[in-house]
Structures are given as C-alpha cells and as structure tokens.
C-alpha cells in the first residue's frame, strides 16, 4: 500500500515537472541570455570583469563606441570630435536630444549634456568630486589607462561641447573613450541622490542613456531589462532582455538546448562538437585578443640558461595541450600577440616538439639528468586558459620524460598573481587579455625591462635591452607601418631568447539558438544585444 502511494506521489511530482519544464513565452519578444556570473554592481567605472561590463552595457553609453564586431570606433554620445595638430586637445561635440532613463524615485528633467560628461570623468579623476569615494572608489581602468597622468583638464565650452586637454599626445585616446570605464552617468541623478543621502544608489539602481533600462536584478539569479522607449538611437528589436545567471557551463548549455535561453556565454569546449551537430543551434566563433603562456623566471637557475628554456619549449607537446584542454578552441601560440593583431610576425617558426633534442640541449647545459622545478597553475579559469591545473598536469608528464621533475603549485588567485609578479616562481602559467587592440598593450606591460622589476607586470623578469629599445621606440611613433616593422623585429628577438613557453590564443565561442539574428561578436569579448532579433 505504501509502495503504491509513493509511486503515485512520484507520478504527480514528475507530471508537475514535465509541465514546468516547458514555459510559455510571455507575449512580447523576450531574449534570454545565459550568462556566467553576477555583476559586481551597476557601474562599469568601478569594475574590471567582463561579466560586470556585459551587465552594464545595455544601460550605459560612452562618448565613442566600438563599431559592433570590430576594433574601430564610431560616434556615440559624441556626434563628432576634433583633435588638435599637436594631438593634445580633443574637442567632443555632443549629441542633442539624448534622454535619460528614469526609475520610481527619479525622473529626469533635462537631456544628456556636457555636465554629465564632466561629472563622469571627474568622479573617477578628482578627489574633490563628492562621488569620488562613493562605492569604494576603485577606478581601476581609469588608472590602468594612465589617465590621471595623461589628463590635464576637462572643460565645458557650452552645454554640448567638451574639451579634453592632455599632457602628452596619446594615440589610443579615442579607443580608450570607447572602453566601458568611460561610461557616462547622469549628474542630475547623482545630485538628487546626494541630496537624499544615498549616493551609493547610483551604482546599484542605474540610470543610463542606453537602449535598455534595468527592470529588476535578483542577485545570483536574473537581471531583467526592458527596452527604453525614449532611446535616441535605433530601437532594439526585443522588448525584454533577461540575463539568466549560472556559473556552470554545462547547465547553461542544457538551458540553451531546452530553449530556456537563446544565447549563452562561454560553453565548455568539450561540448562544442555536440553543439555543432545540433540543428536547432548555431555556433559563432572568433579568436580572442589574448595569450596564455608558461613564463620562465629567467633570474633563477637553471632557467637563466637559454638552452634550458629552449629544451623545455621542445619537451612539451603543445598539440596535446591544445587537443586535451583547448579542444580546438585555441590557436597554438608562437608570438606574444595574437595573429589577428597588426604587426604579428608570421615568419617566426615555433619550436618543434622533440624530446630527444630537448634532452640533448639539457645535457649541453650540464643537466643531463634534468632538474627539480615548480610549475605554477592559477586556481581560476581565465579567458586565455580554460584549465591551468590540467595544462600543468600535461606539462608535468611531458617534462618528466626529459628528466625534469615539476611540482604543481597553486595559490589563491590574488596571491598567485602577486607572487608571480614578485618573481617567487620558477615556472608559472599566466596570460593577458588585450584592452584596446594595440600591440603596445601586450609588449609594454608584459615584457619591457620596466615591467621586469620585482612586483612589475612581467612574469619572466626577462629584460633584453635590444628588445626593450625596439618596443620603446615603437610606442612613440605615429605611423602604423613604421611601428609594425619594429614590433616584428622585437618578436624575433623574443623567440630567440625564449623567455616563455607560449601556449595558445584562445578562441571565443558563442552558441545560440538558430533563430537568433543580428548578433555580432566583439573582438574584446563583450556581449552586446542592442541589435539582436529573434526570427
């Protein structure tokens, strides 16, 4: 009798489940995006993660925008701009008739104007701004882009004209203005909140000029946006945009398959073949602006010997790593910059996988029996390295074959990066993601002599004067062809000195339902749904 009752209860539960699994789409056009995490808050100035930038992109806009799918820039909140002959004065002419969004506590009384631009930059720049310290006041990108050093003044010429004066000419300044940290917030909203005594609300309940406004955020669960009806640009095709948050890529895929979401971020590469086979899905892909590598600390023995570094380069089977860990989602790397970037030197020949030759080189270096070393693996997934521990294991096995006994070491992520930058490791995996598409954005922070100081950004502590002179010179030139030549030479020098085992440039994939149209992948890894439609 009990058995029957249990069975009946089970049937009811399962029936309920079966009905629940197929939700009815709610009237208007809704696009659900299965995203990988919660945003830290709703202000891109304060943050550095792509997840947070993605969640803010529907809401906020910048003076300049990246043309969707490219690294080129186009006008956005600024209709046009003039750059003075010396490159130090940039005048932005702002767009008229741009409306601010509203919420239940705030209704804007005016359109977007120069005050908003000045407020948004001074908030990040000036101690005297009442908002400078609000929400912790960590403006990482503003600092990373060196703006405190570069900016001299920002002046309002009239309500629709703003002039930026720089201390030095800065070629990537316009692309910098298209980056997420340069988003524009409403000064009127800020003033109202300050008066109400809750300034931190500006970063929790956002007001922007973008195509969507925030409707609801349920922590760790969903973000809901609705189309902003007074948006100045082309109205989005979808009425409701939902970010459904889930950390597990397998779960995101299961939801995509069940049409519970229509676009998903960062699939498991192991699932790519199945996604390609599925007729109801499409898979977009694009090489990322990144590099994952194993850095040799050239200041430590025996890695100070270029023969040892070359031997390791030949001892590790790069193909096996790409097959097992990247599983087709990576391009084998032979230069520090990715092949999509201008000045990439394709003449450089990668080291072959040749354990015998590696052993010989080791013997020449006086280490016929190999040596003991550590091999650091970061504890987190990074865009350029899907699984550092797995890669570490594969490398460890390969190195053991030539007599090098590597011990895998890991620390908590912040600690890890700090220790690597301090040069505590012998060999450490790390990598880099580009910010603005310029080669200098790779070479200077990673491989210059300045970065090789203890605590500097270089994880090899490698300082080659010839290489350094080349990249220093290239940074000051304005002609791209001239710069490219210097960078190409620099890549040859780097290859010959082998301070890295360069692993791969990862490829970014975006699976989506077959009926999604108009999605363009951004080279910067941004996820943007302004132009997306459902057929």
């Amino acid at each position: 009798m009990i058995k029957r009752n249990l069975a009946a209860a089970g049937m009811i539960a399962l029936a309920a489940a079966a009905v629940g699994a197929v939700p009815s789409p709610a009237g208007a056009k809704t696009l659900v995006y299965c995203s990988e995490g919660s945003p830290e808050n709703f202000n891109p100035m304060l943050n550095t993660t792509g997840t947070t930038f993605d969640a803010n992109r529907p809401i906020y806009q910048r003076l300049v925008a990246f043309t969707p799918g490219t690294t080129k820039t186009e006008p956005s909140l600024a209709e046009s701009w003039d750059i003075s002959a010396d490159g130090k004065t940039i005048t932005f002419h702002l767009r008229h008739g741009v409306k601010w969004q509203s919420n239940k506590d705030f209704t804007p009384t005016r359109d977007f104007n120069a005050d908003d631009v000045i407020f948004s930059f001074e908030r990040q720049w000036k101690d005297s701004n009442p908002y400078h310290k609000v929400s912790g006041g960590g403006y990482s990108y503003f600092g990373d882009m060196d703006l405190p050093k570069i900016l001299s003044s920002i002046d309002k010429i009239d309500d629709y004209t703003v002039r930026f004066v720089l201390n030095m000419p800065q070629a990537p300044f316009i692309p910098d203005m298209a980056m997420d940290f340069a988003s524009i917030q409403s000064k009127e909203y800020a003033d109202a909140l300050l008066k109400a005594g809750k300034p931190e609300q500006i970063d929790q309940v956002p007001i922007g000029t973008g195509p969507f406004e925030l409707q609801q955020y349920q922590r760790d669960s969903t973000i809901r946006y609705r189309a902003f009806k007074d948006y100045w640009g082309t109205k989005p095709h979808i009425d409701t945009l939902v970010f459904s948050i889930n950390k597990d890529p397998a779960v995101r895929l299961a939801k995509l398959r069940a049409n519970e979401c229509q676009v998903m971020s960062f699939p498991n590469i192991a699932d790519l073949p199945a996604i390609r086979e599925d007729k109801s899905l499409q898979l977009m892909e694009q090489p990322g602006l990144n590099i994952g590598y194993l850095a040799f600390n050239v200041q430590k023995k025996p890695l100070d010997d270029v023969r040892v570094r070359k031997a390791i380069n030949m001892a590790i089977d790069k193909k096996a790593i790409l097959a097992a860990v990247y599983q087709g989602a990576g391009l084998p790397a032979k230069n520090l910059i990715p092949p999509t970037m201008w000045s990439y030197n394709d003449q450089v020949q990668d080291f072959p996988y040749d354990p015998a030759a590696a052993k010989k080189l080791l013997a020449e270096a006086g280490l016929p029996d190999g040596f003991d070393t550590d091999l650091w693996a970061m504890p987190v997934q990074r865009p350029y390295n899907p699984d550092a521990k797995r890669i570490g294991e594969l490398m460890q096995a390969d190195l053991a074959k030539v007599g090098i006994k590597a011990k895998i070491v890991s620390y908590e992520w912040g600690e890890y990066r700090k220790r690597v930058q301090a040069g505590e490791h012998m060999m450490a995996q790390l990598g880099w993601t580009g910010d603005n598409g310029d080669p200098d954005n790779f070479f200077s922070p990673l491989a210059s002599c300045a970065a090789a100081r203890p605590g500097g950004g270089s994880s090899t502590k490698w300082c080659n004067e010839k290489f350094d002179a080349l990249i220093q010179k290239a940074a000051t030139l304005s002609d791209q062809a001239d710069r490219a030549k210097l960078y190409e030479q620099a890549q040859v020098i780097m290859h010959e000195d082998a301070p890295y085992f360069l692993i791969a440039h990862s490829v970014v994939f975006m699976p989506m339902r077959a009926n999604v149209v108009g999605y363009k992948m951004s080279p910067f890894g941004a996820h943007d749904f302004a132009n997306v439609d459902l057929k």
Partner: protein
Amino acid sequence: MSSTASAPVQATGAAARPMPGTLRLFWRSFAENRGAVLGLSITLVLIVVALLADVVAPHSPIEQFRDNFLTPPVWAQGGTARFLLGTDDVGRDILSRLIFGARLSLLIGIAVVALSLAVGTVLGLLAAFAGGFVDVAIMRMMDIVLVFPSLLLAIVIVAILGPGLFNAMIAVAIVTLPSYTRLTRAAALSELARDYVTATRCAGAGPLRLMFNTVLPNCVAPLIVQATLGFATAILDAAALGFLGLGAQPPTPEWGTMLAGALQFYQRAWWVLAFPGLAILLTVLAFNLFGDGLRDALDPKLRR
C-alpha cells in the same frame, strides 16, 4: 568463566585459536548483524586493495594515455578492455585512479580520526577532571565550533591553510573535534562517579594515572564506535572539500578531487562522475555499517 576455563584445551587444537570470553561474546553478537559483517568485509577488501594498489592496478594512476581521452568503460560502446572503467579527460585509467584513491581515502580516515580522537580525548578528559572554569571553557569552545555549519568552517580553515590534502585533513579533524570531546567528557564523568575510581583515588593514584590508566580504558567502547563512524564522516567531508577544489590537488587521485575534475565532462561522459562517487558511497557505507554493528555489539543497551 567457563569459556576461559576451556581455553587451554582449545589452544592445543590447530584451527581454533583461543578467544577471551568477552571478545568471543562480542564477535558472536557482531556477527549476528549481517550489515555489520558486510561493512567489515568491504572494509577489509578496501584495505587489501589499498595495500596492494601497485600490484592490483592495471596502470599508473597518473599516466596519461594521450590517444585515449574519455574512453568509455569496457561494456559501453567504444570501450576497451584495456581500461575497464574508462579513462578521464587527459586519458588516465579511472580504475587505477580509484584503486590508488582507496589508499588516500583510508589515509584521510586514519589521519583525521587519529588527530581528532587524540585531541578530543585529552580535551574531554581534561574537562571532566578539572571541572570548573576549565570545563566550561573547553565545552563552550566546542559549542562555538558546533554553531558554525561544519563545511563552512572547514572551508574557511582550508582557505587559511591553503588548499591541499594535508590541510583538508586538518580542517576536517578540527570540525569533528567536538563530538569526541563531548563523548569523552560524558563517559569520563559517569565513570568518575563510580566507586572504583574513588577507591583508586584513595589508594593515592595521581591525576594523570587516574585519567589515562583508570578512567580512559572504561570509556573506550563509545570512542571506538565514534571513531569508526568518524572514519565515514572524515571521508565524506574530505570528498566535499575535494569537490570544491580545496582538497587534494591534481594529479593526486583523491576521489573528491576526481569528482571536481569530472564537472566539465559529466554530461558527455557519465563514467568520470559515476565511479568515483560510487567508490566514496561504498566506502562510507561500509564504515557506517561496521560502526553501527560495533555500537550494537559493544553497547547492549542500544541494541535494537
């Protein structure tokens, strides 16, 4: 008494070894419990497998067969007899990893139980004997540890010490400490009230002697039971930490860590998830059955 008397007679026989009466009674009552015997048998098999891992395992637990990523188990389509339970995502034989993992699991159990048993017993005896402020201090400490969800506390401790098998064991030992302390204190207190303790004390025994030679041996039964069950808890908790990436680090074939490694692949290759989990379940089950049997046999009051 009669069985002790007959013991010398039996001792001359080759097959039947003499058994002191209480032990034999205990065994008889233990053997009655089929579950307990099953648990004991699985435990013994596990110990043998762990000891003979080098001989039993078909492959090295960390050797990567680069042509055999995610090979299914032998009976599934695409499986091969070379890898009976299939391979993981870097081509390691799952069966061999499980066999070597048995060593680690037993090691975890022994280390955690030994640590928390030793410390817990001393603290418990101290609390019982000293009484007063010491008692209150120790027991309040234990209460406070118990107020935190054990996994949360273990995670924080591992975060402090850094991830790794050894640190995970320390964390688990700390969070399981209160049960041993409480148990020892309760048992010791009830013993202390007995006449023989008073008698020994009057005979001039020092407190240490009283603690370890007189009282402790009489508290052993519940502690043995708790230790056996603690074995199971230790393995489960260590596996949970491993699952969260805080336990043994790769390529160590620890079962919980294997589960964590399976996360990316389990929808495509069920075997990378199913077998390590089954191994944990079976081991924990064995110790639980064994422990229950011990309790029933040692403590007639609790039987049925």
